[in-house]
């Protein structure tokens, strides 16, 4: 009896040792295969973000060129709007773009410190000034998201490390979330933002290398990801989008990968090709998923948008 009692810890120790040795050399993970459909190139200069509007029209924010370029559902160029300037319909290095159910286009006109709203055809509708608080840096709106169910518009103020909440339809600022830092409800250079099916708000917290998740009330739900270069970690998280199944896609512009998480922040997998190899981009930033299961990836340095069809089945990699 005594010998049996001595054997069990020994076996456990051996197993633990083997796990320790094998840890780090084995990565079991899931690949979400995506079939490449087509690329969009249209004289882009470091495009940053993308949104899919009505009739699956594709709006690419070509911010260095200070314009939005619109393409049809097959990626054929339709029109562009915007030039450099400060007047209505003009831009100054815009970074983020979003759309609502009516197809209206919202542009975070970053260095003009405002959000501009356009019809699906690119006609100017309205400007919403993004004003920073007294003592803060000039506002630096880098992205915008709309939650029509909660009648709220969220604007990321990058330089001041806030998420600003505007009520709809009046576009009146009603709240400011977060302060600068790396703790809970703190942000360090938040960049892109997305709203989930359940109205959760996902903020890409770049320097904190995480996605911070808020309730629409401003309460922090939790975080997704963390510092590192392994699966489930981020080095430069940038783009974010939510698919109809409430899965969260996050691009990492330095690692060049797009990872998929569930609403609880658990890693579901990584986007790969049809063979199950991990897909890598040069600098994936803004991303979008539409209701047809198409994934749109803005590759900033490559000056193009890559369009994929997400294949339902998943490939488990040892």
């Amino acid at each position, binding site marked *: 009896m005594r010998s049996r009692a001595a054997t069990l810890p020994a076996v456990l120790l051996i197993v633990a040792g083997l796990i320790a040795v094998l840890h780090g050399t084995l*990565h079991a993970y899931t690949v979400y295969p995506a079939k490449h459909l087509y690329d969009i190139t249209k004289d882009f200069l*470091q495009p940053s973000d993308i949104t899919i509007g009505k009739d699956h029209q594709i709006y690419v924010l070509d911010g*260095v060129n200070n314009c939005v370029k619109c393409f049809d559902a097959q990626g054929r160029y339709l029109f562009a709007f915007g030039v450099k300037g400060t007047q209505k319909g003009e831009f100054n290095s815009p970074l983020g773009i979003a759309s609502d159910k009516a197809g209206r286009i919202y542009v975070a006109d970053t260095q003009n410190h405002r959000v501009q709203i356009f019809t699906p055809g690119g006609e100017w509708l309205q400007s919403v000034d993004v004003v920073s608080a007294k003592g803060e840096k000039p506002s630096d709106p880098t992205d915008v998201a709309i939650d029509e169910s909660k009648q709220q518009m969220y604007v990321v103020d*990058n330089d001041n490390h806030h998420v600003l909440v505007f009520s709809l339809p009046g576009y009146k600022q009603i709240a400011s979330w977060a302060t600068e830092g790396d703790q809970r409800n703190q942000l360090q250079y938040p960049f892109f933002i997305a709203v989930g099916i359940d109205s959760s708000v996902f903020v890409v917290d770049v320097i904190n*290398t995480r996605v911070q998740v808020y309730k629409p009330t401003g309460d922090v739900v939790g975080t997704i990801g963390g*510092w590192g270069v*392994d699966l489930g970690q981020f080095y*430069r998280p940038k783009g974010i989008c939510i698919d109809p199944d409430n899965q969260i896609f996050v691009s990492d512009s330095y690692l060049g990968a797009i*990872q998929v998480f569930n609403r609880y922040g658990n890693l579901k997998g990584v986007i790969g090709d049809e063979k199950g190899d991990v897909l890598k981009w040069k600098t994936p930033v803004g991303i979008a998923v539409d209701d047809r299961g198409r994934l749109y990836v803005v590759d900033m340095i490559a000056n193009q948008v890559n369009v994929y069809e997400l294949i339902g089945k998943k490939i488990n990699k040892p």
Partner: protein
Amino acid sequence: MLRIAYYLLMLLSILICTPCAATEQSVNVPRESDTAKKCAICHYRWVYTFFVEHKSTPIARLEESKDTVGETKMCLSCHDGSVRDSRNKICNTPSHKSGVIPSDRVTIPPNFPLSDKGALLCSTCHTPHSGLTAGESLVTTFKREPNINSSFCIRCHTKNLGGLAQGNHPLNVSVDHPPEAIIKAGGRFGTDKPNEVICETCHMAHGGAGDKRLVLPVRDSHAQSILCEACHTKKPKKPNDPETNRYAHPVDIRPDSSVQIPEAWSSGEKVVLSVQGELVCFTCHRTHNAADKDFLLNEQAGEDGLCVRCHKNQSKVLQSTHDLRLSQHPQKSPIDVPSARSGPCGTCHAVHTGKAPFMWARQLPSAATCFEGYCKSCHAPGQCAEKAVPRNSAHPAAKAASVNTAGLPLFNDSCEESSQGKVACMTCHNVHNPSPVTAVTETGKKGQYLRLGEGGQGALCQSCHADQNFIKGTPHDMSIASPGYRNALGKAPAQSGLCGSCHLVHGAILKEYMWGAPVGTDVPKEWLKAEKPSRNIMVSLCTGCHEKEGIGAKHVPRFGLHPGAFYSRVSEIANKRLKLNICLFTPSGGTSPMGGIVCSTCHNPHQWDGKKKERGTGLAEGTITTSFLRPDLPQLFCTICHGTEAMFKYLYFHNRPARVEKKEQFPFGDLQ
């Protein structure tokens, strides 16, 4: 037994686990995760997974972790707008070079890191680790060292220093008025002196125009050289801008067919033109590492020169007497550079400070029109070429050409070349080509500097006066008729050329017809029937030779002139009845319907056979169809006044016995 097995298993487990622990202790990396992150957020290779665990992950390859900290992609990962938006500066040209190995004109200080392959990185110049010093207040861009008045630039670009002595644009000099255009475009001036020119006056590290990242363009299709012109405002000539339409070398124009722009200069550097192929300042000038250190030119001006690289048609001025370097003439160029230094062109042409068209360096004589003023600014008493003042010109000048000049240049009143212009010295002379060369001396090739000079003597005259060229090979061609003949300048036909036996552009005896041959009397005594006209120069031009002692003694007419040649009756008839293009001459040699009948009325001294526009065939004896007679003379002239009887009068007019004795067939059978 079991106890032994237990201890063996324990030992095995410890041995298996030991390597990991040993590795972690040996690298001595910060274990507090956030501290490590603050470094590894840029130092990608220091990420724990790579640096400690030496492993890859499904989304990050270990081998890709090397040498990335200062690369563009790393910098862009924050400067893509997610922290700062520097996309345009980092990604788009023009931007300071990165990813390339520095040229030998650049000296990289030891504390300026390069990539493992020796290439420039963003981090070669920038680092977040060096705090700004108090002295640097102008820029806050995490430069590796303070940048005081472009001191940062010259840490590497050492060969762009030294000013003109090193062939570089001067630095640290003051300009009187800092151009607003440069400041507005982002150019900066230094602070050690008022309006001090520094590297960043013209250049910017990120942005600007062209691969040199200039604050204003120098090759833009619409504003070619505005950076240069911002300071050097009074130098260039812009043809379409009256404010700058000076007598300077033109820019902003495409070179025409008269110049040949080389592909590259002697240094191998490509010749710079604007995007549209137009001349710009940088076509000739080079602000750094210039071959010519005085004027920052792409070629040595003092040698055969930059000018003739393009102006090849003018290159024959080299080693000619117009190449003042050879004569060591003390004449200085307008920019106070001796001729030996200003090159073959600079003595006469001031590229940016001309006083007249053609960038003429000299003051045109006030009394002279520009039609001859260019030449007289040197070839005149008291001027540098006073020993080579040409004899007075008898050729019409400053007048519209009465003949087709066949491509010879004419000049308008502004002395600009114009097809509707007037005759000037430069119509006949090419000051850049001594041809035909008459002598080779220590001071260069001497010559007549005639256009078409290579075509032989007379080629220039024939260009405009083609019909007179038929004189060649006739008894009036002195080279065959009388090689020993000397014109008024004492030159034999071989020296004077085909036309020069009788006509002299410079040094003529008579202005009329630029006459340079002997001038005879009005009524030679050999004439049997002396006509006594009023003095008419057209008679004496012929009798100079065609008299008893002259070289034309064999062809002295027995009967001199048409009877009553100068009676008003003749003129009246000629005027009222003939209305034909008959050569009646005034006493001064002009043609007029009221003129008289002289030798040239019936004779064209330049064409042996009036019916054949061709050169002569030698010294044949004349007939009544040759003998320099004008064509259709009987029909047009004689018979109108004299009826058919005129044929006999015409036949025996000058030399009845000879014609009778020779029994020449009368050519006008229908009138006989």
